[in-house]
């Protein structure tokens, strides 16, 4: 067992080194789609797609707080975690900075729908006060960060747990891949709105995703580690409540 751990650790280090060596420094553009940078029809389209998720998220939050009023603090904590992580612009190997999303944690604890509300609130704060992201692009940004990212995280968590993986590894992978998925979706949204003259959407997507995904890889790993850290703290002081909240999901999220 111990040997196996060392082996996989070495493998991870080797892979990471390779990634650092192959990587050409280039400027990337992390984070959200800027205000006004989606054509009107796409901005409207993503808003329309996002609204139902937001409504379902509100319902999910109402149900949780009704069944377990004391879970409000944990909800606040999940929102706050997203708040902190998306304020941290971390340098990446591509020579630019981007920030993690922090949405994986809440998705694992409460189910993915709750994050559509919490994530949207964070995006709204950043759009209004920081000119970061935007109101016209909020629908698109919320779809990537507050809906699809959390759904991916939740799905990965479930799959790894079912396969009898360790819970820590399930959380790490869920948070890291949810983070990565967010930025893949952002790339796709930009590619759909701005297809390349030659090669169309696919060429655009490769261009955006190549840059985004590579910038985001170390940040996704960081997000995975930070999520496991917070989980460890909560588990040592509040194991029963965590488990009870998680079991709420199973009775129809």
């Amino acid at each position: 067992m111990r040997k196996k751990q060392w082996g996989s650790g070495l493998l991870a280090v080797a892979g990471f080194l390779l990634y650092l060596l192959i990587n050409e420094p280039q400027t990337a553009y992390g984070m959200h789609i800027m205000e006004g940078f989606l054509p009107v029809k796409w901005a409207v389209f993503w808003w329309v797609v996002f609204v139902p998720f937001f409504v379902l998220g509100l319902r999910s939050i109402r149900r949780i707080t009704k069944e377990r009023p004391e879970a409000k603090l944990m909800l606040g904590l999940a929102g706050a975690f997203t708040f902190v992580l998306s304020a941290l612009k971390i340098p990446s190997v591509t020579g630019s900075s981007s920030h993690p999303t922090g949405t994986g944690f809440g998705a694992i604890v409460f189910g993915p729908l709750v994050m559509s509300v919490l994530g949207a609130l964070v995006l709204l704060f950043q759009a209004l006060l920081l000119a970061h992201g935007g109101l016209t692009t909020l629908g698109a940004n919320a779809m990537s960060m507050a809906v699809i990212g959390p759904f991916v995280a939740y799905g990965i968590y479930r799959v790894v747990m079912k396969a009898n993986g360790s819970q820590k590894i399930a959380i790490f992978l869920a948070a890291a891949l949810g983070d990565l998925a967010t930025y893949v979706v952002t790339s796709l949204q930009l590619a759909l709105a701005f297809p390349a003259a030659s090669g169309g959407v696919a060429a655009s997507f490769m261009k955006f995703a190549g840059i985004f995904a590579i910038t985001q890889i170390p940040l996704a790993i960081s997000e995975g580690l930070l999520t496991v850290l917070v989980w460890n703290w909560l588990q040592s002081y509040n194991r029963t409540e965590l488990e009870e909240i998680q079991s709420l999901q199973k009775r129809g999220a």
Partner: protein
Amino acid sequence: MKKWTNWLLVIGVVLLAVIPLLLVKNSEFGGADGVAEEAISEVAPNYTPWFAPLAQPPGGETESLLFAVQAALGAGVVGYGIGFYRGRSEQKKKGERDAA
């Protein structure tokens, strides 16, 4: 043991942030939202943004203040929550000890 793994997690996060700073020279590590605009104008040279942010921080200092406020608010709530749970669990343990 548990404390120890938590420290490892923290060290991992710090390393992931510091390594790029050491490896990549001659970069400002800009948030580079501006470069996104460049990339879009490469693909779609005729595109003009149709909406501007309602309010923009007047400069880098104000922007970093607002980011710090965002991080501080979030960290405050996370710290409060974990502290609250810790206190509660210690009360419980104490109660169990007293009862025994």
